[in-house]
């Protein structure tokens, strides 16, 4: 499985942002919030722009960070697939990409969180992407 990598904002002309996944409580385990702050320089950039990543399928994903009064920024995160504006998404491909994003995130969060434990959890619950080569 190829890497997920942060990228600059791609051209959004002729594209739409297709909702994929949301997290209301990014700092439930604070190290997860710290990872995104670190990776996307959010202490400096704040709400000024989304983060973008390139996924193994070749597609791009927008990470929209959510602020909430009284909570450290970002408190939440929404992930959107950047897709052709009038085309439906490929659900299986989206699912595999999301799994890759989660693996990338866990790798970045670091110990005691491990990609191996994420993969084991995915296999326990029979997530198709977790059993893909």
């Amino acid at each position, binding site marked *: 499985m190829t890497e997920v990598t942060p990228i600059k904002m791609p051209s959004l002309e002729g594209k739409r942002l297709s909702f994929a*996944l949301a*997290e*209301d*409580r990014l700092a439930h385990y604070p190290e997860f919030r710290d990872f995104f702050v670190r990776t996307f320089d959010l202490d400096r950039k704040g709400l000024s722009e989304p983060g973008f990543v390139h996924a193994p399928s070749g597609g791009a994903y927008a990470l929209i960070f959510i602020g909430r009064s009284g909570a450290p920024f970002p408190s939440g995160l929404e992930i959107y697939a950047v897709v052709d504006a009038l085309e439906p998404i490929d659900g299986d491909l989206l*699912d595999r990409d*999301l799994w890759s994003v989660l693996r990338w995130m866990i790798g970045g969060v670091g110990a005691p969180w491990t990609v191996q*434990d994420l993969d084991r*959890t995915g296999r*326990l619950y*029979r997530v198709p992407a977790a059993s893909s080569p």
Partner: protein
Amino acid sequence: MSIQSDSVLPATLRDRWPYAPRYANVNGWRMHYVDEGEGDPVVLLHGNPTWGFLYRDMIAPLVGGGRRVIVPDMIGFGLSEKPTREQAHCLDGHTANLTALMRQLDLTRITLVCHDWGGPTGLSFAMSNPARVRALTIMSTWAWPRPPAEFHTRIFPWRMMHAPLIGPYLLGNHRALAGRGVYLSVVDRERFADTAQAAYETVLPDPATRLLTWVWPRWIPLDENARAFERFKWLEQELSSSKLPALIIWGREDEVFDAATFASRFKRLLPHAEGPHLVTGRHFLQEDSAPEIARLIGSFLDRLDANGAKQ
């Protein structure tokens, strides 16, 4: 802000859940419950990710034993309204939802049957409304602030399963808890898959309807900074001085809330309690031993009646 889930069950399930749906407005949410029989009320409380269906084989015998049986679906589960924002859910809010229903029905002499999150919510209701409660039955749950089990401190699989983004993906998109999670937590898995699993999956058809399945795990305190730490501390203290008649029933095969740790701790908290009675069952022991559990509760209440016990 919410999903109205009063849609009908598939015909294959309606035969096994033939009870008239009733609804109450609790704290602005639409709560589904069933209310069968006459007599002193027995309130059957489920947890995550189940609903009243968990008690389907206990309702008739309890009603037949002269009890009024009330089975609410927690807001966010079953046929109750399902808020789509995590902020709609908190432990005290769910206790207040139950309290609202109990007061609207003006129930007294209640026997609360508590399982999983039906424990912290039901027992909090009991400790804050003792005049309405006659007795407690406690099954596979906890009521103290430290992590309920070593299992809950582990990253694989527990903390990973509900971690940020992973919870919404695994438990939301992939229905990990309402599907395979329950399946793994019963003894007779083949029978469960054939006769019951669809009932838990059907009422949580879409990722957004499964929100509470990953929100509840995040309310389990792992340290003293956790949101519910003080509430659980209070609950343990209140229980330790409670004289309510109590019955403890546990699944013999329960590996997560294992009887040696959990049932024994409840026995220390409530030394006057009957039990623990061990029955065939993992965490969702009602799936394997409903008739036996109903018999244990029925005979417990019969003894209270015979002794003229009244809280």
